[in-house]
């Protein structure tokens, strides 16, 4: 009943004399609201608003297992990422490029479903530390082949976990580690006892015109670390820049 009243408008005039009416509009309302409202309709209700109108719920579907492949522009599945990575690293790239550890092969950064076109295509990004170039490999997953390849210098994307770990190790091995240890002691009141328990992430750092000490960053791949202790305290090492390409640690300002 109430559903109908809401949809038709609560008739202030008629309500006084006839009570609750059932008009054509009621049918429309009931139709859309379905079973719950239909039953509710059987008896008058004390005021405007039904349980259906007040409680807005959404479905909570079971996600099921991860599919082998996505549909349309769904995110790449882990299987698709694995397959795409096999196809993206050509023998030339594997032999000619260099990763963040100095080993042969490009540093894998990320994979994304390609936003244009039909089929399932993926674009994969790598960094070649030998040439300081960002590499983009477009893979056709359906055809099972590398479709396009691009590279450019002076381009940076977010850091991989291995790059962040490498940057932290470089900092800890550098005299500037004293600043991290001091900041740690200041924040926690305890002496720095190693990297265990730290959560470390990083911004990619690109030099601004006024920067000193890290002027190559942007052309080089550089990171600015965000260090968090197990207790959720942040250790301020914002002024320290780790140049992964140049293998140097520098201080801004």
């Amino acid at each position: 009943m109430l559903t109908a009243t809401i949809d038709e408008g609560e008739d202030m005039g008629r309500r006084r004399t006839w009570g609750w009416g059932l008009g054509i509009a009621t049918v429309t309302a009931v139709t859309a609201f379905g079973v719950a409202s239909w039953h509710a309709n059987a008896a008058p209700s004390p005021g405007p608003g039904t349980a259906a109108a007040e409680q807005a719920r959404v479905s909570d579907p079971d996600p099921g297992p991860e599919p082998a492949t996505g549909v349309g522009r769904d995110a790449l599945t882990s299987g698709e990422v694995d397959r795409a990575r096999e196809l993206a690293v050509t023998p030339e790239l594997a032999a000619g490029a260099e990763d963040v550890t100095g080993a042969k092969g490009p540093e894998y950064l990320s994979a994304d479903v390609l936003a244009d076109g039909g089929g399932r295509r993926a674009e994969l990004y790598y960094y070649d530390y030998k040439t300081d170039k960002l590499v983009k490999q477009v893979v056709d997953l359906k055809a099972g082949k590398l479709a396009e390849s691009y590279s450019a210098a002076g381009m940076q994307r977010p850091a991989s976990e291995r790059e962040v770990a490498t940057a932290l190790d470089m900092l800890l091995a550098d005299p500037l580690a004293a600043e991290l240890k001091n900041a740690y002691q200041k924040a926690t009141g305890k002496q720095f006892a190693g990297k265990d328990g730290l959560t470390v992430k990083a911004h990619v750092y690109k030099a601004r015109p006024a920067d000193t000490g890290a002027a190559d960053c942007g052309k080089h791949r550089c990171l600015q670390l965000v260090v968090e202790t197990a207790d959720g305290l942040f250790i301020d090492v914002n002024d320290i820049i780790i140049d992964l390409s140049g293998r140097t640690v520098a201080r801004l300002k």
Partner: protein
Amino acid sequence: MTYRKTAGAAALLTVASLGLAASPASPAAAAPAAAAAPCATSTMVKETLPNGTTWQLCWRMQEQAGLILEKVFVSSRRYPEPVQVLDSIRLAQLNVPYDSGDTEYNDITDYGFGGWNLQTLTGDDCKGGSARVGSDGAPEPQRRKVLCVSAEASGLAYRLHGYENNGREPIYSKQGHDLVLRAISKVGWYEYVTEYRLHDDGQISARLGATGDLSPGDYVSADKGWPIGKGARDYAAMHYHSAFWRVDFNIAGKGKEKVEQYDTKVNGRGSMTAKLKTTKTTIAKEGSFSKVNRRWWRLVSSSSKNKDGHLRSYELVTGADDRYEAHPETTPDVTFTQSHACEKYATGNADPQCASKKSILDFAKNKETLKDPVMWVRVGFHHVPRDEDQSPMPLHWQGFDLLPRDFTEMSPLTPAARAGVNGQQD
């Protein structure tokens, strides 16, 4: 949700038993199933709000942009045929420079909202909603609870006290609801909430919320900060959050929207007050634009019309905004560019396939003709810290609305008894 599952069947049954058709079109629930699925069942959100409006969309998480909505369709009880609104909407940058001049971050392109920075929903993150499991978009993707889907009351949708010739005085009063999609990303000490609210009247609101904690290291001199500890000692640095969204419409699946700008200016005097004149400027080529008083923009379908014969469109509605004029990229309010797949981020765009296209200014530089326009919306917030920002910092929000303009010939929430009120009444 059994309630909704039974609604479709019940609707047919009700119509049949009363011998009346609610609408000449097929029920909303049946129509989308006929088309090829644009995404997997697990990455589709399709929910009907209490007023009968159904939103359907696909979602995914991307390492840098975080939450991306795609293939967004809307239908309603009054207009049960699902009609596409957006091809996609996503964050396109978050630039955070500090007033000290010594710190600046680009949180989307140099850090990322997706992947390992995307938070697994827990606690009250998705209270009353459904925490959906999907890929986090990481280089080695994990399936986690990363998207919150909920339906939330949005207050009074409309109210009208009618007076009819027969003496009836119907009161039309309706509670509105939004379908809300939300994801949380942790960027250092800040935690950002990406939120899209799909209203039951067809409006879409895009917002970015910031919580977490203030920067632990950025304490500055008195003229660049605000004292938030005891006395006047700890001046937390003022800073900016300039957010960009990339909005790609695909109205009724036909694309090729036209961009129009409207300006209303005082133009002489009438017998009582000023005359105002509104003019339309068609934006045919790429470019960046900014607000002046009463200026607004809309994207109009070049072919899809509502039943009144009006071309369907969505209007950009901007509200609170602090413009960061220290960067040319964060100065304009909106930029329209021709759609190109490798133009993904408003600044810091790094794609070797189009190496010279680094920002919206590069994208728009050659003033290409807009055949399939992409709208880049910038909204800035200058954050002056306050005592209450500790701790955790209460959410502060910035965003904009996309308002349907002539998308349907009347409000999708129009009650049946008002169905005849379309245009000037006798």
